[in-house]
């Protein structure tokens, strides 16, 4: 399978603190990849470097074959990012938000209309498509943000804590949607603390701790490698505890 996203020796330092220590990772086209780890492990830093919101201290990022540093705009055209606390224009309606994002990606108005209508229906926002977002509940805002992030049909969809605020029905349909999009070839990268979600959705899981990728593989690979029959949650806790003891000894 072709690698859609490549982290090649990516390093990120904040002053003296090393947040990401030489990350090497390939994520394939159509793959659902989950990045999990304790708070401050380097997940959000890695995702932000992937969309150009942070500059790597060292290493290279490639998206769809484009070197991010050299061909930024082309690389960004393939990506969509929903951060954990997304900014949303309160004084826009969901429809206006979709139109705006679509135009930023130079989409034809007709295509924006087709995709937008489909997404608004999917996220059950059609009946409020002309209501200002400032009047929405948290969950509805999240839906509007997700819809706007998908309007330009990105090749790589990056989500930081994607299900926060969504109701159970929406979570179920969004999970189905993600699976369907991955089957169509969209690469999905999600960072989450909800380990059940990673276990349920992801083809591969990367566990990051203190800026290092300490485990990588499908849930079955991880169970096999660590000779464990436990679920991801227990495996994750044991792995992180072992790493902490190891780093204390060092």
């Amino acid at each position, binding site marked *: 399978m072709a690698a859609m996203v490549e982290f090649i020796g990516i390093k990120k330092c904040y002053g003296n603190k090393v947040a990401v220590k030489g990350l090497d990772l390939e994520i394939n086209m159509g793959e659902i990849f989950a990045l999990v780890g304790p708070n401050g492990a380097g997940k959000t830093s890695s995702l932000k470097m992937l969309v150009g919101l942070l500059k790597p201290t060292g290493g290279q990022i490639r998206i769809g074959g484009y070197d991010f540093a050299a061909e930024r705009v082309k690389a*960004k055209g393939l990506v969509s990012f929903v951060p954990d606390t997304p900014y949303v224009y309160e*004084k*826009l309606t969901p429809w206006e938000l979709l139109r705006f994002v679509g135009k930023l990606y130079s989409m034809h108005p007709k295509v924006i209309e087709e995709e937008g209508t489909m997404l608004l229906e999917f996220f059950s926002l059609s009946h409020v498509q002309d209501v200002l977002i400032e009047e929405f509940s948290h969950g509805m805002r999240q839906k509007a943000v997700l819809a706007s992030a998908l309007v330009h049909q990105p090749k790589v969809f990056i989500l930081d804590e994607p299900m926060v605020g969504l109701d159970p029905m929406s979570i179920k349909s969004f999970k189905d949607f993600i699976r369907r999009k991955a089957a169509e070839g969209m690469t999905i990268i999600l960072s989450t603390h909800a380990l059940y979600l990673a276990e349920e959705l992801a083809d591969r899981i990367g566990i990051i701790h203190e800026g290092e990728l300490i485990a990588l593989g499908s849930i079955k690979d991880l169970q096999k490698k660590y000779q464990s029959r436990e679920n991801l949650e227990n495996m994750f806790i044991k792995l992180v505890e072992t790493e902490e003891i190891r780093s204390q000894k060092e």
Partner: protein
Amino acid sequence: MDHLGTLAGLKVTLITNAFRSLKKRSRFEFMVLAVFFVAAAAGLYFFFHFSFRFFRAQEPFGPILIDETFYLFTFSLFVMLLISSSVSSYTSLFRSREIPLLASTPVEWNEIYFLKLAESLWYSSWAFLFVALPFVTAYGIHKGAGLFFPVLCFAFFIPFVVLTGSLGTLLSTLIIWFLPNRRRRRLALALAVTFIVFLFVRAQPSLIKEQGSIAGIMSGYLPHLSFAKNPALPSCWASRGILSLATAESRALMGWQDGLFYFSLLLSNALFFLIPSYSVATQLYSKIYLRFQDHGSGETARRIKLRKGFERAIDGLKWPPRPVMAFLEKDLKTFARDPAEWSQLIIFFGLLLLYFMNLRNLEFHVLQTFWKNVVFVLNTIGTYIVLSSFNMRFVFPMISLEGSRFWIIDLSPVRFSDLLLEKLALGITISTLLTLPLIFLSGWMLKIPMSRILFTAGLGFFVCFALTGMSVGFGAIFPNFKSDNPNEIISGFGGSLLLVVHLTYLAVIGLFLMLTSDPHALIFVTVAMGSILAGVYPIKLGRAALKKMEF
């Protein structure tokens, strides 16, 4: 620059929708705000109108003085726009939450820079337009140019604002590029301010030659106002251009060419300064922004020591109760960690300090007693107006900024009255520390009798009480828990109403001060009692409003 059109379209939609959502507000709110704006504009207009009439009556300097006033006005506008655009561009270029959204799309960094430059031009200039319009209308009428004058000024105002705003934005961006370390930036700012103070003090010669008449006083001052006519200043180009086109007489005297020349000079410079802006936007902006995201490795050892000392001091206090103390500690830390916002206040209070320190250089202290008292009262009211803006910006939004967490307060063992009293005590302490030394300094520099200084400073404490009490009370009566942006909270109905109440109260205080040439106990007690009532009553209403609220 493919996306600038889309981004401009976005901003137009946002403004249109903001107006659309205004329709949902009650008619009463609209009426109150409309009446206030019309009354404030009319008040300013009449103030300028009577000032010009007074100036014109001072033969033989009247007409000269009116022209000098216009140069001084545009010069002040230039300086204030420069400061205001530098500060607002810092916030909009580096701290706006919109930037990560745009930067993760194919929008180029230089497009974001120009979008934020336009925003910063708008934010830094619209308020000045509000003050400028009554001034230029009154001025136009006095010059015999009628209503053509404001239109002419507006035409010059556009390139003037673009030029000044581009300069201010460039300045703040380059300062952040060359001085990325916040501590060094503060040191550089302190050095720059010290240098300006030094120049200002050195540049003030003995001014007043003869003070038997206004003409005599003016003959001392007029030569020293010429700095505003320096031909290198954009404000001077704007003034010369506007004045040469203002009336048929001036057009006949100087010709259309003069006016057009100065307009072209402003316009070409405004356009020229977009070139370095473009270079900065393309070459530096993304680097600076990304460097800003690289937050440091935490607090320095010195800061930790300071913070721990502060926490120990707070823990050592026996009163007020711990939950209230928790809010006090949080509010103080939040205030101290918001330098982008309070730096503007430091500038305004700093300018007042600078001016008061120079009162003797300006030789105001040798004026006749009547004029010294007028200057003292005006200085005091000026200080209160800056204090009012402090209360509007920091005290009024305090309750709203508790935001969606407010239900925690509702559940916690803190009475609303305790919470409001904590905000009041904090506000009064800071207000008093900022204001009273300034009033004292102003009086001392003017050689006002000590009894009058103490009288005014004593009343000043009650004015601080009233302004803070009103701000806390109105903040509780009209909270906006949806927003975490203080500017948005202030611009709501509650904030606008508070501004009206503050200004009305200060007008009354100004009248009292003006009319009482001698300190009098009865007046003191009346103003003090009135101020206590003005501060306490809104707090009572605020407490009742919070009790009724559902979260």
